[in-house]
């Protein structure tokens, strides 16, 4: 029985709720997805909007801000796709079915799904950046008729680093939907595109007035992608990016995630481009 007495404490935002691991799926050799039962046994599941993140706690080791990668329409199965790069994520990579991890959240501002209704959607993801975008893709799929063309551009380091290959294949078969994948370096069996994700824009035609773009990946990739989108006629107001900074609290109190005046944890992580454009071009903000 998992006790989650967070409610009985004076709602301190820093106390995690504990949730049980249902399954661990290795996506690549250093990235894995945790499928998690919702922390509260009230039947309502874990409710969130696409683009939000949780502070995920490995017992005794620490927390990491990880975006939620599951389907918002399926609140009973929470998923986090995690890149194993440090102490906390390494500890998380060792959990097994039945183990407990801590969850605090959901936090942050979501992708502009409602804003995109009736419009074309261009999703550009680089590397692990596809993970925070997967929930919004799920929503686009579930509500396919509400949206126009859907274009998904995805770049990864190599064919072995591609995430969600099966789902990408399924999504490419949907009506009026295009999925183009590229890698920075191929291998002997790879017959797909080789080159940076920004080069994929050459292969699509976008109706620049009717498109909302959602971009996520390393900051340098987002900068170049955003330039490319504007070169193809999108205004900054049509472009959304998801930013990342060091986070210790997730609730705007520790100061670490500041990007200029913005707290990535509560003013973001999703930003409309005009909100952060002037800061992106400066060094070391």
């Amino acid at each position: 029985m998992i006790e989650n007495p967070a409610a009985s404490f004076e709602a301190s935002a820093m106390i995690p709720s504990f949730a049980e691991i249902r399954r661990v799926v290795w996506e690549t050799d250093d990235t894995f997805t945790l499928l998690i039962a919702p922390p509260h046994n009230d039947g309502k599941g874990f409710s969130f909007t696409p683009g939000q993140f949780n502070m995920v706690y490995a017992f005794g080791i620490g927390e990491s801000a990880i975006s939620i990668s599951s389907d918002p329409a399926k609140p009973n199965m929470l998923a986090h796709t995690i890149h194993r790069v440090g102490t906390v994520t390494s500890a998380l990579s060792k959990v097994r079915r039945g183990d407990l991890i801590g969850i605090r959240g959901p936090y942050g501002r979501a992708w502009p799904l409602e804003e995109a209704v009736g419009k074309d959607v261009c999703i550009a993801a680089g590397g692990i950046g596809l993970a925070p975008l997967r929930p919004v893709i799920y929503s686009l799929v579930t509500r396919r008729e509400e949206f126009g063309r859907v274009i998904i551009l995805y770049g990864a380091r190599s064919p072995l680093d591609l995430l969600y290959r099966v789902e990408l294949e399924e999504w490419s078969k949907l009506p009026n939907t295009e999925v183009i994948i590229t890698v920075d370096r191929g291998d002997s069996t790879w017959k797909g595109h080789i080159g940076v994700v920004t080069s994929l824009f050459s292969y699509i035609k976008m109706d620049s007035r009717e498109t909302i773009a959602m971009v996520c990946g390393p900051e340098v990739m987002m900068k170049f992608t955003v330039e490319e989108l504007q070169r193809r006629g999108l205004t900054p107001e049509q472009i959304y990016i998801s930013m990342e900074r060091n986070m210790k609290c997730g609730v705007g109190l520790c100061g670490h995630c500041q990007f200029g005046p913005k707290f990535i944890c509560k003013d973001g992580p999703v930003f409309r481009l005009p909100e952060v454009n002037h800061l992106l071009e400066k060094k070391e903000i």
Partner: protein
Amino acid sequence: MNRTLKLSAQNLPQLFTALKSKGYTLIAPVVQDGTIAYDKAESSDDLPVGWTDEQSPATYRLSKENRGRYFGFHTAPQSWKRFLYPPERSLFRLKRNGKSVEFQKDPNEQTNYAFIGVRPCELSAILVQDLVFDSEKYGDDDYKLRRKDLFIVAVNCTDSAEDCFCSSLKTGPKAKGNYDLALTEIVAKGEHYFVVETGSETGEAIISQTHSSEATEQEINEAAKLVRHAENKMKKSVDISDLPKLLSNNLEHPHWDNVAKRCLSCGNCTMVCPTCFCSTVEDITDLSGDEAERVQRWDSCFTMDFSKVAGGNFRITPKSRYRQWLTHKFSSWVDQFGVFGCVGCGRCITWCPVGIDITAEIGSLRGEPNS
């Protein structure tokens, strides 16, 4: 109805007694480690009578003053922040028992402080931190508890230190409200007394337990005169007109390189600043791995680790970190909380080992000569 009273210096102990009898834990200035610091006090005997501090860039020294004032000094190295928002505290403890996890949270150590001797700039700093920690959406519950029952005895400034610039930020030298009591200390014509202004019912209740009387107009004027003296004496200033915009438009001004040559990134400024609120958390476990604790600590944006992420570090150079601190205080803070993050107390100038003067740096960024 707020009243203005007179309390003679010899009756000051009664104020302390009244507060103690109501169960408050008293925090007041005391001489400690070669400084005048804010710490637990029992009676007015603990106050630094006859001591003053000399502060200037990179310099702090205690010296004796000959007027026997209780509050003859300027500002303590650290502010009252460390009582409302402790430098280190345990957030919770966990015990894992197979499938279940037990929580333990230490009860709050203290929720009934009385701060005696809060400078107007420091009072403003508390109000600034209230906007950070006491907000509806994302507040800190421990802070709220400590803040709720806090009794504030403000002390208006009758002298200013070399590093003071509160008048530029309009936070002093006189407290304008948000206190329970405000004292102005007067030593004149052989008399030693306080002009006391009440600011709340609680303040009224406490002062009514002392032998105080209505202040005369002459006494009130004397107090005002001394406060004006403190204001006029201030040499440092910051032109805050349109400052947030000026800073955000000058993120690549060549002057940042100039400061970077001097700044050691030691973080002293953030440690003494009464409004800095950055923190970090540390998760600790015992050898068995079944007991864990999370501890929150003050942090500083000057540390190398502050901006680290999985892929690298966003602020590697000392220049970027100094710029972050200054632009946060005078620009981003306004976007975030609607007020400046700086209250003009000047501590950062005093305690900077190389004496970097934030008012001069802003002057240089404005392109002022002689900065």
